[in-house]
């Protein structure tokens, strides 16, 4: 589904990523783990077109999408959530999800300001779809709340609802469990599995090892910008290099 090859990213003197390659298999949940500063978020920023890598390529379904802008990748079915929640704070929860539907509509300035009949129909369809994704993530009752005033856990769910509204082929989640309590984390695990069951490929950056080992089909370990290991959760747990990297850090 997604293939990164030889990704290197330098920020001035800092090498955030060095020759990182791996694949994210279609229909699976792939975990990307590593100590703080390993380069996980940087990797997501490159894959989603926010950063341009120093070198290396990204392929989405066999298509070379290196250096594609995020908005173009969105229409090709790639979407993400953010480590530091990036909601549209002054818009309602419902409106946030409706932005996720942006690529599914075509009404422009003229049709919107004149409220042409087909634009009104499109809006109605958007609202219905948005409610569908609010139900999917279990936050329907918050539809009319301002997104900026949501508690942290609900904000994370809204980010997922908004991303799912694009009906992506692949969703990249950056630490979706950070800041959640154990009950919320459990619900998140079920939600991520439900997303995978709906046919969406998942790439998951996460520090919560229990969650990662529990739901991931494959794991990639990054350390200091390099790929340290790759394998099934069991293989990773038994890998001495991984263990020492984590112990060394702790």
């Amino acid at each position, binding site marked *: 589904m997604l293939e990164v090859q030889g990704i290197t990213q330098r920020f001035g003197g800092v090498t955030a990523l060095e020759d990182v390659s791996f694949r994210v298999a279609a229909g699976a949940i792939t975990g990307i783990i590593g100590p703080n500063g390993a380069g996980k978020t940087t990797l997501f920023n490159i894959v989603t077109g926010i950063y341009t890598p120093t070198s290396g390529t990204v392929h989405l379904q066999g298509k070379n999408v290196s250096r594609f802008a995020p*908005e173009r990748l*969105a229409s090709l079915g790639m979407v993400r959530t953010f480590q530091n929640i990036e909601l549209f704070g002054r818009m309602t929860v419902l409106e946030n999800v409706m932005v996720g539907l942006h690529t599914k509509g075509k009404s422009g300035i003229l049709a919107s300001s004149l409220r042409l009949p087909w634009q009104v129909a499109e809006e109605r369809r958007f609202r219905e779809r948005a409610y569908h994704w609010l139900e999917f993530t279990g936050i329907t009752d918050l539809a009319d709340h301002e997104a900026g005033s949501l508690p942290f856990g609900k904000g994370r769910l809204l980010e997922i609802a908004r991303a799912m509204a694009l009906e992506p082929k692949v969703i990249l989640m950056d630490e979706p469990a950070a800041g959640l309590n154990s009950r919320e984390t459990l619900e998140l695990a079920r939600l991520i599995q439900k997303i995978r069951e709906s046919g969406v490929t998942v790439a998951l950056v996460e520090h919560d090892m229990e969650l990662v080992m529990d739901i991931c089909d494959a794991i990639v370990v990054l350390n200091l910008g390099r790929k340290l290991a790759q394998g099934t959760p069991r293989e990773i747990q038994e890998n001495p290099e991984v263990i020492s990297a984590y112990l060394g850090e702790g």
Partner: protein
Amino acid sequence: MTKSRSFLKHEMVKFILFTILILFLPLAFKGGYLLNVFVFVGIHTLLAVALNLLLGYAGQISLGHAAFFGLGAYASGILTATHGQNPWLAMAVVAAAVGTLAFIIGFPILKLKGHYLAMATLGFGIIVYIAFNEAVELTGGPSGFSGIPNLSLGGVSFDTDFKNYYLIWGMTLVTILLSLNLVNSRIGRGLRAIHDSEVAARVMGVNVRFLKVQIFALSAVISSIAGSLYAHTMTFVSPTSFGFNFSVELVTMVIIGGLGSIYGSFLGAALLTLLPEILRAFQDYDIVVYGLLLIFMTMFMPGGLVRGIPALVGRIVMRSGAGSKADA
């Protein structure tokens, strides 16, 4: 879903009440001096709504909007007075031309952010202002351009404050209605998304760069129409109306009224149009007064009048109504 539909109904009721207020306001003025002032409140509301789409919704500053207003005014004046063209046709052609110009300069300018964008739009405003002064054969230079005909429709010439009030407010009300529709649509959500998180908007597939340019051009088109209306109402224009001070005044209107509120733009425009009439003594210090107003508002009413006044009223009602509760 029901909630969203009732929201639309609520918006419609508000708009109808506002329209009634505007339509009957002249009765209260009895054709006096205030009627004339409210003709300008209408033009300023049009301008403030235009700038608010860009500044309040998309979150992109422009310190050069007086230029689009001035281009509309001068081009309409020149086409009708010098070349005898039909004023309505001229207004439309000029608006299209100014929109195209904004579209073209929008691409490089709107790549900039924050202070850099402010500087670039400021620079554009200054260049246009200098052109108004220097292109003497076309514009009459610093002494101004006179002899612009009044607009007329079906034999009725808009030559009194009373007629101009309804002409200008008719246009302004239509613009307000269309703008309300726009900000509550796919495009409006895109604009507000850019304001709150540009990176998230892009990841959601919003073509941020193009949408910014589009709204910049739309804002310029509305400003240009306001300029044409201004020229035909005044029948005389001079460069001082379109300088840096007026660009700042427009930004002040939008911020004081309330960023991201269409009705707020009316409040801001009304206040800043009425204020100089009240504070005649400050005539030469208008920009100082705007500055102080901005500081005051940012400190005490960061949401603008449109949000600040209801909050203030609420607080006063709470104080007097349920003292014990308010103490708790």
